[in-house]
């Protein structure tokens, strides 16, 4: 694994390497190099099994983290390629030409995070939702509890007490 990481570091600008396990590494790379790196890993280093593509919303930094998780089937190695993209008008190059199922992941990301992958097949079709007209739900600025309470009629009649407050009310109300 170390060897492979060294190889990559020679060829690409890797900003961060995290060793999670002996056979699981996460590396960070710039947005423009990402697809190139993934292609390189697939074709040259033979990380032929694409596990997942997902996004993490770092709203504090105004960034989405995209993680491409690749797996080397015979050497049993995992490598996670991380890249950070801007949260506003998020777009990313599509990788659907590398594996067939990448398009599904990209379709989900488009719907749930609003990250666009121009050129990916059916990327604009709704995947899980239907008739959704709010901001993409997986973005952290979308408040699911508030939305649910406003939309889905929570059953009324519930109220709770904080023990400390209640005891204050009962035992020493004047202090």
């Amino acid at each position, binding site marked *: 694994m170390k060897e492979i990481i060294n190889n990559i570091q020679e060829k690409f600008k890797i900003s961060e390497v995290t060793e999670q396990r002996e056979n699981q590494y996460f590396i960070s790379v710039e947005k423009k190099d990402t697809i190139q790196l993934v292609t390189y890993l697939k074709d040259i280093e033979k990380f032929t099994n694409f596990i997942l593509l997902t996004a993490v919303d770092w709203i504090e930094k105004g960034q989405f983290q995209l993680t491409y998780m690749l797996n080397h089937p015979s050497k049993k190695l995992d490598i996670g390629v991380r890249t950070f993209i801007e949260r506003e008008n998020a777009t990313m190059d599509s990788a659907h030409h590398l594996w*067939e199922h990448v398009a599904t992941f990209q379709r989900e990301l488009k719907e749930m995070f609003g990250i666009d992958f121009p050129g990916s097949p059916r990327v604009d079709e709704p995947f899980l939702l239907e008739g959704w007209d709010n901001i993409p739900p997986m973005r952290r600025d979308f408040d699911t509890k508030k939305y649910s309470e406003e939309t889905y009629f929570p059953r009324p009649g519930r109220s709770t007490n904080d023990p400390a407050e209640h005891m204050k009310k009962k035992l020493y109300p004047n202090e």
Partner: protein
Amino acid sequence: MFHWTPDRSAFPTAGPDGKFDFDSHKLVKIWHGPNHPGVTGNMSLELTISGDEVLESKTHVGYLHRGFEKLYERRTWIQCFPTVVRMCVPESDSNEYNLSAGIEELAGIEIPEMAKWLRTLVLEMSRLQALLRIVPAQGGTVGLGLGVQWGVYLRDLILDRFEELTGGRIYHMYMIPGGVRGLLPDGFKERLEENLILVDEFVLSIKRLMLDNAVFKKRTVGIAHIPVEWIDKYGIVGFVARGAGVKKDVRLDYPYLAYDQLDFDPAISTDSDIYARTWIRWNDIITTVDLLRQIMAKMPKKGEFKAPTPNVLHWQVPKGEVYVRSESSRGEYGFYIVSDGSKYPRRINLRGPSYTHAVSLLEKMLVNSNISDIAATMVSLQTCPPEIER
């Protein structure tokens, strides 16, 4: 004498924009599901058919979308633990294991030996109950409902053991981060063994009823073939890959829990059709029963079953990210967990085998297949919508 193959040149084809001309009256669009006994769970397929042949298929999922990954933003790590189970209904324990293993890896907790064995036991029992339902269900998809009756009964007996051990039938919520929630009750081993003997009988009778059935063979041999090149192209895992001749099994490739101390060899076939995949899963029942017997024999009798953890009410799992995987009955089942060091997980992402099997692979496989084979194809991939949609 009566051999006839359809003349594909007469078939309608999609226009330059990829759309079909429905005004030609050679096409019907049908919705296979969600309210349809032939789909696995609550999902649907939008099929464009001509005669009995499928020209185009689109998977529609989201009927079970509950936004789990969003809900985890609002839940502490321990509160994720009961929730995560619901991500896959037929085999919930892989979720528990993955979440717990992920948290333990991030927090650097080593679980006790006893807990490892109990987890292995529960995972294998879970696999067994899933297989007992799905293997005969493969017969059910082509009209042989009898095996389902037997299989689900046995599954229920395994669920009884689950109930005894974990307190729940379907959602066990047993593998809490740090270990498990209890030891084996008295006499568990004997009762499990009684059930396993019944499963042994079932294995034989289902073979006689289904695998050695002329009509079943006719319906499944050579149908829904998956070429071996597709394995990487579509990210195929588990028994589907093994059906195509690629031995993929997380238990062997990335041994976890006590699997490195167990002796097993999952079946493999190169036919890569529905029959081969059924046969492999039928073999998996035998493997699993054997594994369960090995586990019961090798398991320590007593011991600590939970490592101490910080106060779960405000457990801050250290910053980091990890991908953990386990082998479910459908194949590699992975969790991608990101922690930002706070009380709440930053991201928990599930990558189930059905995510590709039921979407990109199924869409591809159904093209030019017969509508009668759709249900059989889906069950042969053991698609499970809740894990696609979460």
